């Protein structure tokens, strides 16, 4: 069983050791106003975690004492949210006397992506509300080839959507409006070597919205085109550098059709096979934590309770991915 609670999604997933996902239930915390408030989200998670676990067991047609392993997202993420999931995981693990496994959230996005798409050794573009990074496996670890230097692309989209009073969630609303846009507004494009920056883009697009000279469709169109062009460039540079045979797109922003087209075009150009992680496994979910927990356990990695404290800043490239060796 995997417990995911890094941000606004509370996810419980159940997987078998041969890679069958038996249950994947996600309960989303929707803020009344503004962005995610870590404490409010954590409160939501603790309120619903019991119920969500029950629903997952029901979906898997299992009883709690049939679970052999408890995995949880140990980081990175929002501290209060992580702690809620970790507390539940520790409690269940010690009650059932079953091993506890702390899983890196970013690693699990890649692993469930590999499982769901059958990609073997992909270069991954992982784009969500909290993360924007380009990563690939090399000598024992997932290396980070490029990442945002400030905010995530999803954060940029969400914040603009709120500023422009678009409906929640922001990404799909922007995507729909962008389809009707055609005029490209000049916006800051920031790629530094292999890294990206989106805070300047966000400030600029909000200013363009406020000055009222452009239609909302053109604003959304320009925001997508400029932001995704930067993602494309960094991904392409990393693909050219690593010469990976596969290109995997994951994270919530990976649902965007325009971004998928960009990835497809880049993959084709470099003779790589593109893969898109299905949306239920691309957004934060418990199945990815369960599956990565299994991989870790099969390679002798378990997390003793005294080392199960959460790490809100746990980097992807700190994890020894023994199962890939």
């Amino acid at each position, binding site marked *: 069983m995997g417990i995911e609670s890094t941000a606004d999604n509370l996810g419980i997933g159940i997987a078998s050791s041969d890679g069958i996902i038996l249950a994947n239930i996600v309960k989303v915390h929707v803020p009344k106003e503004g962005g995610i408030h870590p404490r409010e989200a954590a409160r939501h998670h603790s309120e619903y975690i019991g119920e969500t676990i029950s629903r997952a067991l029901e979906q898997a047609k299992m009883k709690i004492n049939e679970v052999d392993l408890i995995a949880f997202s140990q980081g*990175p993420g929002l501290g209060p949210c992580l702690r809620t999931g970790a507390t539940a995981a520790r409690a269940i693990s010690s009650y059932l006397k079953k091993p506890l496994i702390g899983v890196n959230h970013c690693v699990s996005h890649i692993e469930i992506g590999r499982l769901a798409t059958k990609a073997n050794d992909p270069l991954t573009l992982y784009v969500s509300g*909290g*993360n924007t990074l380009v990563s690939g496996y*090399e*000598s024992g670890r997932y*290396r*980070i*080839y490029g*990442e*945002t*230097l*400030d905010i*995530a692309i999803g954060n940029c989209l969400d914040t603009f959507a709120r500023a422009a009073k678009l409906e929640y969630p922001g990404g799909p609303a922007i995507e729909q409006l962008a389809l009707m846009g055609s005029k*490209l507004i000049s916006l800051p*494009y920031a*790629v*530094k*070597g*292999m*890294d990206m920056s989106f805070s300047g883009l966000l400030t600029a697009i909000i200013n363009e919205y406020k000055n009222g000279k452009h239609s909302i469709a053109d604003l959304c169109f320009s925001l997508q*085109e*400029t932001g*995704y*062009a930067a993602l*494309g*460039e960094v991904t*392409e*540079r990393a*693909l*050219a*550098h690593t010469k990976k045979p596969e290109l995997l797109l994951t994270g919530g922003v990976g649902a965007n059709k325009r971004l998928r*087209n*960009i990835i497809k*075009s*880049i993959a084709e*150009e470099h003779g790589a096979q593109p893969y898109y992680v299905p949306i239920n496994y691309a957004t934060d979910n418990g199945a990815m934590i369960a599956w990565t927990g299994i991989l870790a356990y099969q390679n002798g990695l378990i997390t003793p309770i005294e080392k199960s404290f959460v790490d*809100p*800043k*746990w*980097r992807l*490239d*700190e994890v020894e991915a023994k199962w890939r060796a």
Partner: protein
Amino acid sequence: MESLKLLAKGAEADIILDLNWNGRKAIIKRRCIKTYRHAKIDEEIRRLRTIHEAEIIHRVKEAGVPSPIIYQVNPNKAEIIMEYIEGTKIKDLIKNNSDEENIKIFKQIGVQAGRLHKANIIHGDLTTSNMIQSGEMIYFVDFGLGEISNEIEKKGVDLNLMKKMLTSTHYLKQDMLLEAFIDGYTQSTGTKAIEVLTRVEEISKRGRYIEKE
């Protein structure tokens, strides 16, 4: 047309060797059209980076760092025609070199990176793929993402990229190579080095997640 030979297909540009460009060997760097991005963004990126790169390559020489001689610039075709440098990429040298040779090379790279920063030139893509050893000289190439700035931040981002490239590509020798690099960098920039190197530490801890001990 037979004199043209595609040497490398980079992520951004084609590097073409022209064996007979007006009677001499030359490199044509042509920024490729990227159909995945909006044509207007694409055109603008390619045109501006072409002009920019040519300007910066000139400044690099003034700073005392070897870089190719520019023969001609065609912004609308996103082309720079420049000297062909015979040699080997540093990236490809490291594996077979002795530690001693590598330390010498990385110290020299550090010295040259320091010279660039002293002249307020930001490389923008400071990696071992963009350095060529030719005879006794190490040429810096590909200033496509370069810019002129005196900001500590930009110099820090520049060095952070070098550091990250060492971690992701030359991870087996990263500490040794980084030390030699910093040694050389400090030699060129003197007391300013501390400020930039402190910023590198800060930058590598930014983004969303901090790197731990």
